């Protein structure tokens, strides 16, 4: 039955989602004030996986989820209190289930010993709690089962209204048919029949997870058993029809579809090409003859607008909420806090902030590292915290926000902060040259230096593979930067600034030495034609007095085109630019125009070039270099830079 393969896929996807739901909810579970609704959701997720895995013959998952379900059911009926120990066991079971799911998905050998061990652990934990907490109640071991069946009957209404009679039946039936059917149904060949009889299925589908079937209707079971014989005939078609509809329960999710990322990347590339072709057409449009000129211009304007809209739409397809990354951290924090015996609250802010998909994947590792770092080195042990008069529980705040063309992600802890002396000592020990002047900010950046051993780092906790230098490198590779703010005793904040997208930049095209360069618009302050009065000379190098400030200058023709420097600044244009760290002017021959450009990698076929962030293709098909303003600062004459840093005005003489 080839059709089954496609259903298997659906099951895998949905089981994955259910496992993630379980993990999220279990992590959020408050032992002291349990939310029954959440428990119900976790229970339903476990139940769905159990049912689905049973149907498709993924028995390794069935057994495990069955035990899980029992425990969860007892918990939601409040015959059992989940303690943090049990939550941990449940989470571990979720991990095992994930492994098993992967094995099934990749058609690998199932690790049965692991599954059985997990099941035993879970049963043991369940039994322990039951025997310790409920000796006085009349509830005995088998009863969670019957209670659960009764509960299902109420919840999903597919059992007849007599829980009493059901109890007997369903308990005995539990093992093979998962309690979806009552006696009548059981007379049908369960394995073949399940999911293929329209009405039987619908009764069976209290389970949203199958997603293959509509579940909005739950006709009386009697009806089902009556109909089933003739339904058998058209079972195939029924399934196919329903598969295309997807369950009513999942209808809210059905507004989204899964698409291979490669397809999206291709789309983005094609749109990039389209933008280029469009600007080529624009150029040609300017040369057409008078008779069609007007029409042509109108059509081109229309095309331009459409192109821009397509571009925006396609770019937004790639944007994902950053929660895709953030969601994995509660688990990390929980595991780490248990391991390190620290109490930690993780607060997540701005999880809805959207970020380019490519960034999502690449930012995950650096963030994991920084969070580990905060917990490992930042947050103190509970005793220390109490001794310092702080709350015993440390807080790590993970936040994301969009600021202008950038995404700002920050990781703040209320721990001890960075230790200035130890960092300095460590740097000296490892022969790392110290920055000048020795400001706090410069010292914090030292921990990103390669060779700044993480093994015996600041707080002597070892055991992590990657160094902070890798974190910094990864972030810089994404066009971002990391800053550190730290107050001794109060905590530290690592702030990451990332560009919104890697693919397109708004730029100003300028001309220098007969070549076009693109300056990212975010960096531009203003473009001016300098007057004689504004030009000052310091040590034979021109600088500019604008906006009550002296601006050092970089001549693009000289620095990037191996050409002569401009001799007469009054005939040139100066584009004033600023970065996080510096402000200066770029000398160019003229402005060409403002336009969105698609960033193409120079490194793909060539290598990195100093002062250049990438390349783009202009309307005429030629290549223009996109300037990396940050790294252009190196072209500022060293002596001027020094002079500027010490005194920005008094030193000027001419």
């Amino acid at each position, binding site marked *: 039955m080839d059709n089954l393969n496609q259903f298997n896929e659906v099951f895998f996807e949905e089981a994955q989602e259910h496992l993630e739901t379980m993990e999220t909810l279990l992590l959020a579970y408050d032992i002291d004030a349990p939310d029954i609704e959440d428990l119900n959701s976790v229970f339903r997720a476990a139940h769905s996986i159990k049912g689905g895995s049973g149907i498709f013959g993924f028995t390794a998952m069935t057994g495990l989820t069955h035990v899980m379900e029992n425990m969860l059911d007892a918990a939601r009926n409040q015959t059992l209190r989940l303690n943090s120990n049990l939550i941990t066991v449940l989470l571990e079971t979720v991990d095992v289930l994930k492994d098993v799911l992967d094995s099934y998905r990749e058609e690998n050998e199932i690790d049965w010993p692991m599954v059985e061990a997990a099941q035993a652990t879970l049963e043991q934990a369940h039994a322990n709690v039951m025997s310790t907490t409920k000796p006085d109640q009349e509830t005995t071991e088998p009863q969670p089962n019957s209670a659960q069946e009764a509960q299902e009957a109420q919840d999903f209404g597919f059992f007849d209204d007599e829980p009493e009679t059901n109890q007997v039946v369903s308990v005995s039936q539990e093992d093979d048919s998962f309690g979806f059917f009552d006696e009548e149904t059981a007379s049908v060949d369960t394995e073949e029949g399940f999911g293929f009889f329209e009405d039987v299925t619908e009764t069976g589908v209290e389970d949203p997870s199958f997603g293959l079937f509509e579940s909005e209707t739950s006709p009386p079971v009697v009806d089902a058993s009556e109909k089933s014989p003739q339904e058998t005939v058209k079972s195939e078609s029924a399934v196919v029809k329903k598969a295309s509809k997807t369950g009513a329960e999942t209808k809210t999710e059905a507004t989204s579809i899964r698409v291979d990322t490669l397809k999206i990347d291709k789309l983005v*590339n094609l749109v*990039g*090409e389209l933008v*280029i072709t469009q600007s080529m057409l624009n150029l040609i449009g300017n040369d057409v003859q008078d008779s069609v000129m007007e029409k042509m211009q109108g059509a081109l304007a229309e095309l331009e607008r459409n192109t821009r809209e397509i571009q925006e739409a396609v770019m937004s397809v790639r944007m994902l909420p950053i929660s895709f990354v953030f969601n994995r951290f509660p688990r990390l924090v929980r595991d780490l806090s248990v391991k390190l015996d620290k109490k930690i609250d993780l607060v997540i802010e701005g999880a809805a902030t959207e970020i380019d998909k490519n960034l999502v994947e690449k930012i995950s590792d650096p963030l994991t590292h920084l969070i580990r770092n905060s917990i490992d080195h930042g947050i103190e042990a509970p005793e220390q915290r109490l001794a310092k008069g702080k709350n015993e529980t440390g807080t790590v705040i993970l936040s994301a926000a969009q600021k202008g063309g950038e995404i700002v992600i920050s990781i703040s802890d209320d721990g001890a902060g960075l230790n200035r002396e130890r960092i300095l000592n460590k740097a000296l020990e490892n022969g790392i040259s110290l920055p000048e002047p020795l400001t706090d900010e410069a010292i914090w950046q030292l921990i990103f230096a390669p060779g700044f051993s993480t093994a015996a780092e600041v707080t002597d906790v070892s055991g992590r593979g990657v160094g902070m230098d890798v974190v910094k490198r990864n972030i810089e590779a994404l066009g971002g930067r990391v800053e550190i703010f730290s107050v001794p005793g109060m905590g530290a904040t690592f702030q990451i600034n990332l560009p919104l997208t890697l693919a397109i930049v708004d730029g100003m095209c300028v001309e220098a030495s007969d*070549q076009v360069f693109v300056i990212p618009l975010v960096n531009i302050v203003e473009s001016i034609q300098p007057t004689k009065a504004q030009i000052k000379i310091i040590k034979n190098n021109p600088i500019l007095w604008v906006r009550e400030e002296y601006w050092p200058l970089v001549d693009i023709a000289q*620095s*990037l*085109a*191996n050409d002569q420097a401009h001799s007469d600044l009054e005939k040139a244009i100066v584009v004033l630019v600023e970065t996080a760290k510096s402000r200066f002017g770029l000398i160019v021959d003229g402005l060409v125009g403002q336009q969105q450009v698609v960033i*193409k*990698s*120079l*490194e*793909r*076929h*060539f*290598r*990195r*070039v*100093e*002062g*250049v962030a990438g*390349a783009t*293709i202009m309307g005429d*098909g*030629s*290549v*223009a*270099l996109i300037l990396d303003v940050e790294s252009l600062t190196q072209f500022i004459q060293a002596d001027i830079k020094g002079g500027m840093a010490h005194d920005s005005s008094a030193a000027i003489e001419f």
Partner: protein
Amino acid sequence: MTAVQQSSSSTMLAQEFLTFVLGDETYGLDIMTVKEIRGYESATKIANAPSYIKGVINLRGDIVPIIDLRIKFGIGEATYNEWTIVIMLNVKDRIVGIVVDSVSDVMNFDAEDIRPAPEFGVTFDSRYLHGLASMDEQMIIIVDIEELISSDELGLFDTAHA
């Protein structure tokens, strides 16, 4: 594709070579590395790059570097006219264009046709040579183009720094 490339660097069975002219000399390179051949068009200059790196061009959306081996190895004169040819190569998953005076032919050579190059008298370092082959009295210098293009000496790729 990869199998062919492997055999080119190790066993050198009978294979096809594209021959091209630099100055007065005829060279050959493994035709499987050739992506396409096109006329020379001026490239966008790259700042602070050695003179043999002519710059980058747009090859249907890819930004591709163009190098002039004539300048790098001082063979012939680096002139650019309507007959100047660029051979686009696929090397280690990258595209690189090399400027040549002309492209002559595609030739078949067996492994035994290719003799080791003498240690002297050849412009290229022997590391980048497979050897010499002759065809109709003409000597053809068979270049290990992959080795040459990815060499540190040309400095085209970042790998050396990373």
